[in-house]
């Protein structure tokens, strides 16, 4: 991943963008943080938030014109938050002294500020903090300008005086009763200021600039013309803003403050010979990109004040603060257990993935995170910026494999299962007996064959009858596990084999029984004409229903790999209706469906998250589920959720209730596949397969079976250990229990088995494994 790509991905996630109120505030007060502090009753923390961006928090908490409210998301559900009133509560209830100002080292440059209104005072304040010497010229005999014209009930004088007292600690030189102009009666000219000072800021209030004869370019309204974004006038060392810029009808105290701040930044840049314009996009108000859903928010009107003159009581303020949505996006995180698990959000995750890929020496902390994603694509559907973490993780896995940095334990087991399915034990490709060509080719997939081999047989029989003209059969794995594991080479090899065999059969249409195989072929083997089993059955007519299941209402679980396959989703629903069932749509269905925990090999890389994912899914409805992927069905059933596979509704699963039939484990799935092949070869093609004698039959109790499943150890591997120990005599014995203990490493994992010989075979007591090799 390149830096540029990282930035593009990061930009898609809006979680770190400010809430609408903060973006709309010309000085970007962190209102969300202030409200959060208020909720805790921590007025000092709330006040500290205000003080960070506001030189005069008391004044603003009384007279702010609140452009923030226009952008408040709560405004769409009940009414905007009373932000100014909450600020006032922080100011009035804060008992801690204001934080000490931090001043930069003194600079040997003098700046003149003309006018002591809000913008002039802010410029003076900011420049003093930056270490400049500031001389203020004010026409009246006090600081504050037109603030003194505001009625006392709106702006009590003690509030005004308290905020202005901030200058007592600053070395501000003030010249009162000084007026700017070139008339003979006045004592200050812009010309002389330009000679004596390095830069000048003009906060002239609503005075008609033309009357002052300043020699600056004026705009059509007769006010001093300034460049938006920098406030520089036609004279490069003179800056102007505040009400002079806004005009009489548009007075905005908070904008005046932002002008003062903007001018101070411009002056600082001007005096340092830096660009006036570079990187200033986010000064002043802007529209945030942060997405915040108000979908499930109950409308609530603003909390009224018992006494509007006194403002909110602390209790009222707390209630109003609780109305704040504390705007965030987190849409994907709310929908995905994987994204929630790591307690952050995609912008951070993308960065972690990037860092993980960039490490040359050191620990790859994000390996497990990268391998834990189900690659299901739900986040992309939900994300307002369409960021797909699955795509990011998939690309990262391929890079890790390419660099030899993929932890072998993450996917080894699943890849070996794939290899089993594509070995002689299961793989098979044939024309229908009696045919030398195939009109269609049935590809049931490895998981359906592993879960319900009897149903595969029945479907194949039905397809042969219904389609006539020859329906071939191809048993094997489509390669999805290799794709998910980032094993591109292995994946291409599987696809290549499938394509060659398909060509050799005369390029028939492939009828696919598994939605994941369907997606893999569709995306990677575009020349192959495909039809999903259920679309075909919906079109051709259903087989005779053998199952005895009373029509009921079922919740359809769409497979995540069929997220964008509307035709598949529709055909499944159509078949369900034909079978007499009602459908309940889950909140997350069709293009918003969720993964069962198997996708992306999640359950091999991170069992904890996979378990959370499957439990989230099965708790979304009380009624029975209907799945059309065998893996989804088995994953739900394993956790006790009554779930039918669509084929169960046609063929049943004698002798019991198909919704409750147990999910076969990994070993049993392989045995089912092998048995299916053997049965078909013998019964359909009438060939005898060589029966392998089991030299060392195993006796495995249920709890040991569970141990095998849990530890990802196959019965076949246990068999190898026992056979090795019995043939070579290389075994240990526990003197206490008398059990034999043996170990053997067929490929890369060393398996340990504790066992004891019985009359009819070998009883297995314990199994475990490790990947570290014993080298001598």
């Amino acid at each position: 991943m390149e830096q540029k790509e990282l930035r593009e991905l990061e930009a898609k996630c809006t979680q770190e963008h400010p809430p609408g109120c903060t973006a709309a505030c010309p000085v970007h007060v962190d209102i969300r943080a202030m409200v959060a502090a208020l909720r805790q009753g921590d007025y000092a923390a709330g006040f500290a938030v205000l003080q960070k961006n506001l030189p005069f928090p008391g004044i603003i908490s009384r007279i702010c014109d609140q452009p923030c409210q226009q952008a408040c998301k709560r405004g769409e559900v009940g009414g905007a938050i009373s932000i100014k009133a909450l600020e006032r509560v922080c100011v009035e209830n804060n008992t801690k002294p204001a934080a000490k100002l931090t001043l930069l080292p003194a600079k040997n440059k003098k700046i003149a500020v003309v006018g002591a209104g809000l913008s002039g005072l802010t410029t003076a304040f900011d420049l003093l903090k930056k270490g400049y010497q500031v001389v203020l010229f004010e026409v009246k005999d006090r600081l504050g300008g037109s603030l003194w014209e505001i009625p006392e009930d709106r702006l009590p004088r003690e509030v005004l005086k308290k905020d202005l007292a901030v200058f007592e600690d600053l070395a501000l030189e003030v010249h009162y009763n000084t007026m700017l102009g070139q008339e003979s009666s006045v004592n200050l000219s812009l010309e002389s200021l330009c000679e004596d000072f390095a830069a000048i800021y003009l906060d002239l209030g609503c005075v008609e600039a033309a009357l002052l004869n300043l020699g600056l370019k004026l705009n059509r309204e007769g006010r001093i013309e300034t460049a938006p974004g920098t406030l520089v006038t036609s004279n490069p060392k003179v800056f102007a803003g505040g009400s002079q810029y806004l005009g009489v009808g548009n007075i905005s105290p908070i904008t005046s403050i932002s002008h003062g701040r903007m001018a101070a930044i411009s002056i600082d840049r001007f005096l340092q010979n830096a660009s006036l314009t570079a990187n200033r996009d986010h000064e002043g108000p802007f529209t945030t990109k942060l997405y915040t859903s108000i979908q499930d928010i109950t409308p609530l009107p603003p909390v009224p004040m018992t006494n509007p003159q006194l403002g909110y009581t602390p209790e009222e303020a707390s209630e109003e603060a609780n109305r704040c949505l504390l705007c965030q996006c987190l849409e994907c995180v709310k929908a995905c257990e994987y994204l929630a698990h790591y307690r952050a959000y995609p912008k951070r995750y993308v960065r972690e993935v990037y860092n993980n890929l960039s490490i040359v020496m050191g620990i790859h902390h994000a390996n497990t995170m990268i391998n834990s994603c189900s690659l299901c694509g739900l986040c992309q559907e939900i994300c307002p910026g369409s960021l797909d973490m699955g795509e990011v993780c998939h690309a990262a896995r391929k890079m890790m494999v390419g660099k030899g940095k993929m932890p072998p334990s993450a996917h080894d087991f699943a890849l070996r299962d794939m290899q089993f399915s594509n070995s002689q034990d299961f793989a098979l490709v044939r024309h229908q007996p009696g045919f030398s060509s195939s009109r269609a080719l049935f590809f049931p997939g490895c998981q359906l064959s592993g879960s319900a081999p009897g149903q595969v047989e029945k479907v194949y029989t039905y397809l042969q009858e219904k389609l006539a003209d020859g329906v071939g059969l191809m048993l094997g794995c489509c390669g999805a596990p290799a794709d998910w594991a980032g094993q591109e080479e292995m994946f291409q090899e599987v696809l290549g084999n499938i394509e060659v065999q398909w060509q050799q059969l005369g390029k028939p249409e492939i009828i696919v029984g598994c939605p994941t195989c369907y997606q893999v072929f569709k995306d990677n083997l575009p020349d192959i004409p495909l039809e999903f089993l259920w679309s075909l059955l919906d079109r051709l007519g259903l087989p005779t229903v053998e199952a005895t299941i009373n029509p009921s209402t079922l919740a359809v679980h769409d497979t995540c790999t069929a997220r964008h396959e509307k035709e598949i989703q529709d055909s499944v629903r159509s078949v369900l209706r034909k079978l007499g069932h009602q459908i309940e749509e889950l909140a997350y269905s069709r293009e918003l469906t969720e993964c069962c925990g198997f996708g992306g090999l999640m359950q091999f890389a991170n069992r904890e998250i996979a378990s959370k994912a499957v439990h989230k899914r099965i708790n979304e409805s009380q009624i029975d589920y209907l799945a059309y992927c065998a893996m989804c069905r088995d994953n739900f059933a394993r956790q006790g959720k009554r779930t039918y596979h669509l084929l169960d509704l046609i063929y049943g699963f004698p002798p019991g209730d198909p919704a409750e039939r147990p999910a076969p484990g990994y070993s049993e799935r392989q045995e089912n596949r092998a048995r299916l092949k053997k049965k078909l070869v013998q019964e359909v093609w009438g060939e005898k397969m060589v029966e392998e004698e089991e030299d060392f039959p195993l006796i495995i109790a249920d709890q040991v079976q569970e141990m095998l499943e849990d530890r990802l150890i196959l019965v076949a591997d246990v068999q190898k250990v026992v056979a090795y120990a019995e043939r070579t005599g290389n075994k240990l014995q526990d003197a206490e229990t008398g059990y034999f203990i043996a170990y053997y490493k067929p490929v890369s994992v060393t398996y340990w088995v504790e066992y004891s010989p019985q009359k009819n075979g070998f009883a297995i007591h314990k199994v475990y494994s490790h990947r570290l090799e014993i080298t001598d």
Partner: protein
Amino acid sequence: MNRQESPEEQKKIICVKCNIPLTLGKTTLSYLGSSFPVELFQCSQCGLIYVPEDLALGKMLQVEKALEDK
């Protein structure tokens, strides 16, 4: 991982072929290009090793993960 639990706690394991109890001895474990010496119970005659379950699923698993993330 240098030592297994002390011999007192260690259950008595016998090499079936040589018919002698295992004793602590030096051996090497390796993974993904890294090797390190360890002391494990083994048969002093034929060299058959014993890795108990808690070692395999505890310390050895930790080391595996650490090496895989290196």
